[in-house]
């Protein structure tokens, strides 16, 4: 797996099951880059886990619990995720708002209506979640220790 154009995170293998390798990594907040991290704990860091299905690049036997790994996601997939999670709902929100305002609805209805539209959108995403999980694949790679 070439590492071109990819986002790479440090992670640690925390579980190995029949179908997945579970990897844990720390998701840092926007402020995490800041040197004041130690002082400012408002910058959330959450530990997340992802399941990585076995594939050619992750042969089962190679990994053990506690192994440090790199989690790799290509940038284009990352942008795609952003698109699905944020950009489209934003567009729906705006369009809905403008349509409703064209009908001279009350502001409360307008607001709730467009939020509802976004909710419906998310529902659709929910329905297609299995398809999505095929699109968003990650791979892991053992960290080379020198």
């Amino acid at each position, binding site marked *: 797996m070439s590492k071109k154009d990819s986002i790479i995170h440090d992670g640690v293998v925390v579980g190995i099951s029949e179908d997945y390798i579970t990897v844990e990594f720390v998701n840092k907040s926007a402020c995490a880059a800041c040197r004041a991290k130690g002082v400012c704990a408002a910058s959330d*860091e959450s530990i997340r886990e992802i399941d990585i299905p076995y594939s050619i690049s992750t042969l089962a036997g190679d990994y053990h619990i506690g192994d440090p790994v790199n989690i790799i996601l290509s940038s284009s997939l990352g942008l795609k995720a952003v698109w699905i999670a944020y950009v489209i709902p934003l567009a729906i929100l705006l369009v809905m708002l403008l349509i409703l305002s064209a009908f001279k609805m009350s502001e409360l209805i307008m607001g709730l209506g467009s939020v509802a539209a976004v909710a419906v959108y998310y529902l659709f995403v929910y329905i297609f979640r299995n398809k999505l999980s095929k699109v968003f694949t990650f791979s892991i790679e053992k960290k080379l220790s020198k």
Partner: protein
Amino acid sequence: MSTTIILTIACLGVLGLLFSVVLYLVAQKFKVEEDPRIEQVESILPGANCGGCGQAGCHAFAENVVKAPSIGSLFCPVGGNAVMSKIAAALGQEAVEKEPMAAVVRCHGTFDNRERVNHFDGYSSCKVMSALYAGDTDCRYGCLGEGDCEDACQFDAIHIDPKRGVPEVDVDKCTACGACVRSCPKGIIELRPKGPKNRKVYVSCMNRDKGAVTRKACIVGCIGCGKCAKVCPFGAITVENNLAYIDFTKCKLCRKCYDECPTKAIWAVNFPIRLPKSATEPHTEPKVEQPVEENKEA
């Protein structure tokens, strides 16, 4: 007025309630705590991010040392034993002592000792130079003097002396991170124990050519005569491919080999000055800096 207060309380109360429910849900899904020991260990580490430990950086080291079953497998060369024992204490484990090491440059082909036979005019880098040709002296094993090691060292511990043309290690600053070892295309630099009072004895030469060829190239080159191996009472010296090597695990710093070496390829540094013997001292002829100077170096 009191309605305002009531409304205020009601409003915030509702919000607070809502919020705590949301948070409860969140809490079900997320763990929000990194092992606090990682940060603790990281704060003990020197923070050089040099990679000398074989990890990606200090944070990675901290992560791994916390997760590792015992800390013995990892060692921060920069922090040395002091830091490792602190980490061990923090993790409630036993520290594993390691002997402090320092970089040693095994070439002494200074301008005086080794004639430059051509002039290199490319990008000043040992790597570029060694990829191009054998070097600007007749010794193709020796230091190229372009200072890749100096650039690699984060600790300002190794410098090319412009008057001599080979690097010198500042033992006090050297942390044995090994960056210079990795950077030298000629493989000249070795990590050796600092030794008591920084005293060491080593062969400062890498030339594996035949004696005659070596001699032509450099007056302090090891000619592989094997006298040192014979004289060493501890069997610490081996000669292979016309080059002697002193095994530091066996060497007891007796300096017999140093006295024996006809070309002064063997170095004994930081020993107290010995009074010069008679004028017939066998090897005063090569123009080597005498140990007197070496004392200054330390």
